[in-house]
Every structure is written in structure tokens, then in C-alpha cells.
């Protein structure tokens, strides 16, 4: 624990000194400001903001996470040669990257919105959006670490990370859309809902739907959909599953790191 905190403190200091996170925070702030200005009000900006969260957050987290691992390789070798356990070091590094990024996202998005004035009705969806964003940061830095520890070459690792992003934001949904067309004759409700749980971006998106498109979702004649979208059940299930999506890649990456030959 002590070692982890020490590593974490070091990481935080170097991340802050590196200014990248500051830049990302500014990017989120600018994007949020622009969206609010374009839409005219915070309430109207929420859907576009959701798109920003679902697209930009995974991409930024993946790139930021992989780059961190590749850049810190020398330092890793140095520290690990000392009497510091690999597990605390891994945990400290991951937290040291994830926490600043999550903070940059939350502060970057919420400050311009708070300045513009959030109407009462938009507080809940906005908080939900921020929570989803933070969870997505966690999921995708964990995935980034996983990729970076498995792929030694930095260029290939970054490529793999980008491919992963493309797969999760576009290709996966494309496959689902095709499946829907091919298996149109079959009852698809349940398998489709299950499919959402195997992609964190979809999982996050479905959670957004629960708050932004409830009217449409309740218009569809499916008992399973109704149970899922009509009650608190759906949001809890989605949030828990997103948390699982943080833990699983993290555990896999940690195990790989503990055993790998640096």
C-alpha cells in the first residue's frame, strides 16, 4: 500500500508536469462550451455531449494509457529492479494515469456547463453522463494497459489500441446491425440486450438511452425491453457491468505485468 501510494504520488506529479492532462481538460472544456453554444442551452446540448463522451473519452483514454506505458518503460525497469513489488507499482501507475484523466474530463465538462447554468431537469442526466464518462476512462485506460503490456512495439501497440477503439465504436455495432437484418425472423430482443453487455461503449450508450430516449424505448413492444428500460434495473445492471469492464482488463493486465520479462 505504501509503495503504491508512493508510485501514485510520483505519477501524479509527473502527469501534472507533463501538461498533457491539462491540454485534455481544456479540450473537454472547449468541446463542452462549443456544444452548449451551438445547441443554445445545456438541456439541448446533452445529446451531443453524450456523443462526445461515447466517442472521445474511449479514444483519448486508450491513446493516453498506451503512451503512458511505452514512455514509462525505462522508469518501470528502474523501479522494478528495486525492492518494490510489481503489483503496487502497477496499481500506482494505473491510478496515477486514470485519476488525472478522469478529473480532467469531469472538470473540463462540468465547469463550462455550470457557467452556462444547468436547469433542474438536466442535472440528473448530466450527472449520469459524467459518471459514465469516468467509468469509460477507467475501462479504456485498463484496456490500454492490457494492450501495451502484450504488444511490445510502441507503434504496433498504438495501432492495436486504435483498432480496438474502432471495433468497439463502429465495427461491433455494424456486426449487430447485420445480424439484426439476417436474423430478422427470430426473436432478437434478448440476444441484442445481451450483446450490449459485451462492449463497454454499447453499455455506456444504453445507459445514456435510458435517460435521454426513455419515451422511444417505452414505445417498443417487448417485455424484456420494458423491464430493462422501464425500471431502475437497467441502469443498475449497466453500471455494475461497466465496473466489471474496468476490473477484468485490469486484472488481466496486472497478471501479465507481474509475469512479463521486462
Amino acid at each position: 500500500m505504501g509503495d503504491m501510494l508512493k508510485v501514485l504520488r510520483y505519477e501524479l506529479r509527473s502527469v501534472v508536469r507533463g501538461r498533457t492532462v491539462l491540454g485534455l481538460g481544456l479540450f473537454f472544456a472547449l468541446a463542452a462550451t462549443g456544444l452548449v453554444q451551438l445547441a443554445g442551452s445545456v438541456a439541448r446540448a446533452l445529446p451531443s455531449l453524450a456523443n462526445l463522451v461515447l466517442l472521445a473519452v474511449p479514444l483519448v483514454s486508450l491513446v493516453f494509457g498506451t503512451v503512458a506505458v511505452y514512455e514509462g518503460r525505462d522508469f518501470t525497469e528502474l523501479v522494478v529492479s528495486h525492492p518494490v513489488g510489481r503489483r503496487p507499482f502497477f496499481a500506482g501507475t494505473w491510478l496515477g494515469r486514470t485519476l488525472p484523466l478522469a478529473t480532467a474530463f469531469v472538470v473540463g465538462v462540468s465547469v463550462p456547463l455550470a457557467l452556462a447554468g444547468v436547469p433542474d431537469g438536466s442535472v440528473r442526466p448530466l450527472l449520469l453522463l459524467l459518471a459514465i464518462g469516468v467509468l469509460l476512462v477507467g475501462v479504456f485506460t485498463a484496456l490500454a494497459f492490457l494492450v501495451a503490456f502484450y504488444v511490445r512495439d510502441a507503434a504496433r501497440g498504438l495501432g492495436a489500441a486504435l483498432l480496438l477503439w474502432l471495433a468497439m465504436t463502429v465495427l461491433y455495432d455494424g456486426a449487430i446491425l447485420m445480424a439484426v437484418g439476417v436474423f430478422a425472423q427470430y426473436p432478437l430482443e434478448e440476444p441484442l440486450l445481451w450483446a450490449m453487455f459485451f462492449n463497454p461503449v454499447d453499455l455506456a450508450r444504453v445507459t445514456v438511452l435510458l435517460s435521454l430516449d426513455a419515451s422511444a424505448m417505452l414505445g417498443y413492444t417487448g417485455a424484456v425491453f420494458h423491464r430493462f428500460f422501464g425500471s431502475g434495473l437497467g441502469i443498475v445492471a449497466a453500471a455494475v457491468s461497466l465496473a466489471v469492464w474496468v476490473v477484468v482488463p485490469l486484472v488481466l493486465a496486472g497478471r501479465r505485468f507481474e509475469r512479463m520479462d521486462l
Partner: protein
Amino acid sequence: MIGTLTAVLTVAAVQVGAAQANVVPGGPQGAIARAVAAARPHDTVRVGPGVYAEPTVVIDRPLVLVGLPGAILDGRGERGLVRIESDSVTVRGFTFRDTGVSFTEDRAAVHVEKAGFCHVAGNHFDDTFFGVYLAGASDCTIRDNTFQAVADRETRAGNGIHLWYSVRVTIEDNVIRGHRDGIYFEFVEDSRVSDNVSERNLRYGLHFMFSDGCTYVGNRFVENGAGVAVMYTERVVMERNTFERNRGTAAFGLLLKDITDSRIEGNHFVGNSVALHAEGVRRIEVTRNRFHDNGWAIQVMANAEEADFVGNDFAGNSFDVSTNSRRTATTFTSNYWDRYRGYDLDRDGVGDVPFHPVRLFSLVVQRNPPAMVLMRSFLVTLLDLAEQLFPVLTPENLVDPSPAMTSRVAP
């Protein structure tokens, strides 16, 4: 206490002038009926505070029946309460309660049978099967009443205000909750429904069929099981009504079926599963309405003829317009669409590029409803964009040629 009040009733026919009779609790049964029977045409019968569990009061002569504050007519779950069989009857100031459910008769708290110029005002209807039931009535007014029913199933519920073969009826400032249909019209003509609130009814907030020439102004229809459905009618005017949060698989803010020569103007449709569904409509004008935060703002079927949507405001809807054919006789002109991404170079407030309100994704969902889980996916955004640029699947002539750049509907 109630028992002692109702067990014995007395008629104290205190004459205040020649035309007034007072009924107070504490005499033999049937006090109100006897006061009515004793009254001359156009007399006033005043009923004092207390609970009256009497046989149905039949009013067969022109009369003003007034409930003083605290006058309660109780059906004990067994009977209707007042039956109006004469012209020019006024019933006001009562609390009507507990008529019970009947499967053999249309039991109502106030039943008007073939009468004209009746006036039902300022009453409270507490768990009645039908509230006010007009059959063959004309020139009646139903005003300032509240209806609160607690039915749990459609089959065990009656309508709040029910009109059958009636003409020139005015229904205004009533509040109706928890009935089967809030307001129900069948074969009603030239009537006016204004400033009522109809909410949380089991089926429809407002339901009418074969009711030509009626006007609906400033009403609120909120959270009804199936919203509002109106059918087989001509010359309907609906202005400044609010249709809000009518959600569910068969819930429509407003369902129009075989509606002809009608006007729907300045209404607010907010947070409904389907805001406006139109099939078999002919020559209807839908102008300056707000469609905000609905699942589907407009579902217009291909059998709609000359349905014109002008100057409406579409924002925050999951789907703006969906239809079931590539051909359509529906026109959209000068509406504001929050999805519109065109430009306005000459700054005249009208977009220079036409807007196609039917998204490719809405067609996908129509064919395969479960695909709805892909809503807001980046992939879907890309597909919609591609279809917008080169329409091949969406209806080509369903287009707004002159989309407004800013909303023109006052909030």
C-alpha cells in the same frame, strides 16, 4: 357520526321566497327526492351539509339543485346518484361518491337522458363509475368539476365525462383523473372542450368517434395509459392543448384515424412515446405545434392525403418523422428541426438546403424494432449521414424544402 346523519333525514321546507326549498340531514329517507317532487318548475332546492345515501334522485322538472358545502351524495357502491330527465336542470356544489361498478348498466353519478340546457358545475366526483353521462343531451354545460376514480383495470372502470348522441355541449375547467377515458364522445356535434385537465386515466385522456365539428382548446392530457385517440370525424379543431408524457407501447400523444378537414394548431407535445400518429387522414393542417423530447414526433402513414405540417417546432425527439412507404402525399413546410445542419447564406431565416426528416435508422427500426438498442450509436449516425447525402431508401419527396433556422413557436 355519518350513520346518524344518514339514517334519518328531514325535509325542512323552509321557503326563502317562493322558489327555494332547503333539505337538511336528519329526516326520513328520500328527502331530496321529496323536495324535488314538491318543487315547482325553476325552483331552487338547497341541500345542506351531510351524507345522503338515498335512492337515485330523478329530476323530472326544470330545477336548480344546489349542494351546500359538505353535501355528499353517497351511492354505497350500489346505484347512480342523480338522473336528469328534464330540460333546464342545474346541479352544482355536490360531492358525489361511490356509485360502485356495474357491468349491466352505464351507472353514472349524474346521468342526463334526452335533456337540454343542463348545467353540471362545481361538483366533486369521488370514485364514481361514470362521472357525468349525457345521452341525447343538447346545449349542456359541464364546468369546474373534479373527477377522481381509483379503478385499477379498464374493464372495471367507466369514463369521467361520457357523451352519446349529444349536441352543443360545453365542457370546461374540469379535472379528471383515474377513469377509463377522461372525456369520451360518440356521435356528438358542435361541442366545445376547453381548459380541462385529463390525466392518469387508464386508457384515453380524450377519446372521440363520429363527433363532427367539435373544438378542443387549452386542455392538458397527461400520463394517460394510451394518450388521446380520435377517429372517424370531420371538422375537428384542436388548439393550444398539451399532450405530455403519454408513454407505452400503445400510447400516443394524439392518434388521428380517419380525421378529415381538421386543424391542429399551437399544441405542445412533450415526452410522449409517439406524439402524433396519423392514418387515413385527409386535408388536415398541423401548424405551429411544439414537438419536444418525444420518442417519435410524427408517424404519418402513406394513406394520409393532404396532411400539411407548417411552422412546427421539432427538438429533442428520438425520431422526427417516420412513415411506412417511399411515397407520400404529406407536406412539410417551414418547420424548425433541431437536427437540421444546413446553412442560410442570405440570412432570411430559411435554410438554403432542404431537410429530409426521415432517418434511415427509423426505417431500420420499423422493419426490425429490436434494432432500437443501436440508437445513438456512432455507426447509426454515419449511416444516417450517408443516407442524408444520397437518399436511396428514405422517402424522397418527404422533405421540408424551406426549413426554419430558428424556432418560431413561442414557449
